[in-house]
C-alpha cells in the first residue's frame, strides 16, 4: 500500500517540483506557507491541475500527464478533510456524513455509520445542522464524512489550524486512531512541528516548492540540520511506554528501557506514547551530573555537532532511548570538547515536556 506523487509546474509565478513516495501510515506534508504543500494536496485531490503530474494510489493511476490521463475529483475515491470543515450547511449532520457513502456503492466500506458515530462520539449531533456545531464538532463530522466516502486515501489540509488549543487537543487523537486503526494511507498537510511529532509516520518536508527532507518521522526530526522553523523549534521524538503513575503526580515512562519522568499523563499503564523533547530544554554534561534538580538524565554518545552562523549549536546525542537533540552555545560545545563519538549526558527537565507534545500511538 503506497502513494506515489510526482508534480511539477513552472507557471503562475510559482515554481514547483515535488516527488515522493508515501508508505502506509500517515504521511505529513510539512512546510511553511508558500512551500507548496496545499498545491500538492489539491493536485492529489484533483482540485487543481499542475502542468506535469503522476499520482498513483495502490497501483491505481489517478493522473499521468505523460499519457494525458487526468481523473476528475469525483472519480478519485478520496476522503478530504478540509481546514474549515466545509460541511454542507443545508444538510443535518447525518446527511453530511452519508453524502459520499451513497455515491461510492461499488467500493468496500471502510467503516459503517454506526462505527463512525461511535468512534467520533457524535451520536447526539446527528440531527443538528453545521451552524449549530462548535469548531471541534465540525471537524469530527468532517473526518467521519471523509471516512464514510469509502476512500482509498484520506487527505487532510491543516485540519486543526482553525481550532484553538483545547480543540486541537480534542481532535488530534482522532487522527491518531485514523493512522493506527484503519489500513488507509493518510496525506496530512501542516505547518505545525508539534503535529508532525505527534502524528507523522513519514515526513515529507517541503521548502520553496521542492522536497527538502523525506523519511520516517523520528529520523527527520532528530536530524540536527533540519531546522525548518529556526533552531528554537528543533526537537527530537522518543517512543516510550507508560510504566507507572507515581503518587507524587509524576508518570514514569520507559523509552527502550530508559526511565523518563513526566508530569501526570492521562494515558493508561502500558500505553505507547510519543514524547517530544525540545532541543532548548536539553542541557549536556560530560560527566554524570550529581546534585541536580532535573529528573531525567540520559547517557549517550555525540552523533554530530552542527553549528550555524549564530552563537548556537545543535548537538545530536544517540542514547538508548533514541536520538536526542540539544541546543547549546557554540562556546559550550567547544569548552566541553563535544565532537563525534564523545560520551556525554543529556539532562532533560521533566516539566519541559508540554502535554500537547505528547501523543498516544
Amino acid at each position, binding site marked *: 500500500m503506497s502513494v506515489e506523487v510526482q508534480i511539477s509546474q513552472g507557471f503562475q509565478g510559482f515554481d514547483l517540483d515535488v516527488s515522493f513516495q508515501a508508505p502506509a501510515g500517515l504521511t505529513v506534508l510539512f512546510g511553511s506557507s508558500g512551500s507548496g504543500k496545499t498545491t500538492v494536496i489539491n493536485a492529489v*485531490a*484533483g*482540485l487543481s491541475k499542475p502542468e506535469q503530474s503522476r499520482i498513483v494510489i495502490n497501483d491505481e493511476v489517478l493522473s499521468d500527464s505523460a499519457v494525458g490521463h487526468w481523473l*476528475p*475529483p*469525483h*472519480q*478519485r*475515491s*478520496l*476522503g*478530504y478533510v*478540509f481546514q*474549515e470543515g*466545509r460541511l*454542507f*450547511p*443545508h444538510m443535518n449532520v447525518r446527511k453530511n456524513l452519508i*453524502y*459520499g457513502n451513497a*455515491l*461510492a456503492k461499488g467500493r468496500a466500506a471502510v467503516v459503517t455509520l454506526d462505527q463512525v458515530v461511535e468512534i467520533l462520539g457524535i451520536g447526539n449531533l446527528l440531527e443538528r*445542522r*453545521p*451552524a449549530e456545531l462548535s469548531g471541534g464538532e465540525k471537524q469530527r463530522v468532517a473526518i467521519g*464524512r*471523509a471516512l464514510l*466516502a469509502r476512500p482509498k486515501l484520506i*487527505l487532510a489540509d491543516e485540519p486543526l489550524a482553525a481550532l484553538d488549543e483545547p480543540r486541537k487537543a480534542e481532535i488530534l487523537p482522532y487522527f491518531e486512531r485514523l493512522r493506527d486503526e484503519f489500513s488507509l494511507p493518510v496525506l496530512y498537510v501542516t505547518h505545525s512541528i508539534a503535529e508532525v511529532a505527534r502524528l507523522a509516520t513519514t515526513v515529507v518536508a517541503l521548502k520553496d516548492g521542492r522536497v527538502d527532507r523525506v523519511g520516517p518521522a523520528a529520523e527527520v526530526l532528530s536530524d540536527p540540520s533540519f531546522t525548518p522553523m529556526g533552531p528554537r523549534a528543533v526537537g527530537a521524538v522518543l517512543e516510550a511506554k507508560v510504566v507507572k503513575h507515581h503518587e507524587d503526580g509524576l508518570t514514569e515512562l520507559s523509552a527502550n528501557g530508559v526511565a523518563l519522568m513526566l508530569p501526570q499523563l492521562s494515558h493508561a499503564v502500558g500505553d505507547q506514547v510519543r514524547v517530544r523533547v525540545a532541543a532548548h530544554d536539553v542541557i549536556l554534561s560530560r560527566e554524570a551530573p550529581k546534585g541536580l534538580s532535573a529528573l531525567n538524565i540520559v547517557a549517550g554518545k555525540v552523533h554530530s555537532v552542527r553549528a550555524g552562523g549564530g552563537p548556537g549549536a545543535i548537538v545530536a546525542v544517540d542514547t538508548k532511548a533514541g536520538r536526542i537533540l540539544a541546543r547549546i552555545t557554540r562556546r559550550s560545545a567547544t569548552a566541553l570538547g563535544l565532537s563525534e563519538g564523545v560520551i556525554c549526558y543529556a539532562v532533560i527537565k521533566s516539566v519541559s515536556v508540554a502535554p500537547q507534545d505528547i501523543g498516544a500511538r
Partner: protein
Amino acid sequence: MSDWLGPQEWGAVALSLQVAFWAMMGAVVPGIFVAYALARWDFFGKQFVNVLVHLPLVLPPVATGYLLLVTFGTQGVIGGALKEIGVVFAFRWTGAALAAAVMAFPLLVRSIRLSLEAINPKLEQAAATLGASPVRVFFTVTLPLMLPGLLAGMVLAFAKAMGEFGATITFVSNIPGQTRTLPSAIYAFLQVPGGETAAMRLVVVSIVVAAGALILSEVLARRIAAKVGQA
C-alpha cells in the same frame, strides 16, 4: 370575488394570473442557466450576454414589444419558423406570456446570480471530492443553497409579469379574453366613459397581488435561509 368583479374584469385577472405563471415558469430554467454562466464561467462575449439580458430593464417597454413583434410575429424570423410547427405567439395569450417573461427575465437573473455568488465554491469542491459528479453537485449543493434567491427572484418575476403593459400591448395588442391582461384592462376601462369604478377595482386587485407577492417572497426567503443555515 367573482360577484364583486364583472365577468370581463374577472377574465382579465384570470388571464393575468395565467400569463404571469407561465412567464415565470418559462423563464426559470433559462434564468438559472444564464445566471450560472454569468456567475461561474468565463466565455467570449460574456459582457454582450450580460447587456442583452439586462436590456429589457432599461429599454422602453414599447421598444421591447416592437422587437418581439418583429422577431416572434408571424412574419418574423423566429415567429415564421415557429408558425410552421404550429406555435403562434402574435396576438395570443402565449405572446403575452413571452413578453412578460422577457421583461421579468433580468430581475430573475439578477436575483439568482446574487445568491449564486454568495455560495462558497469550496463547498462544491468538497462535494466533488466525496464522489459527486458536476451535475450531482449542482442538484445537491448549488441548487439548494441558491433556493432563497431563486424563489425570491421567481416571486419578483411573477409580480413583474402581472404588471407588464407596454411590451405586451405592443406585441399582442389588447384583445378581450385573449390578450387583455390586468393592466391592459385597466387601461381599456379608463378609455371608456364610466369605466373608472371597474378600473379602480382592478387596481385594488393589482395592489393585493403585488403586496401578497412581496410578503410571500420575504417569508419564503426567510424560512429557507433559516433552513439552509445562511440567515
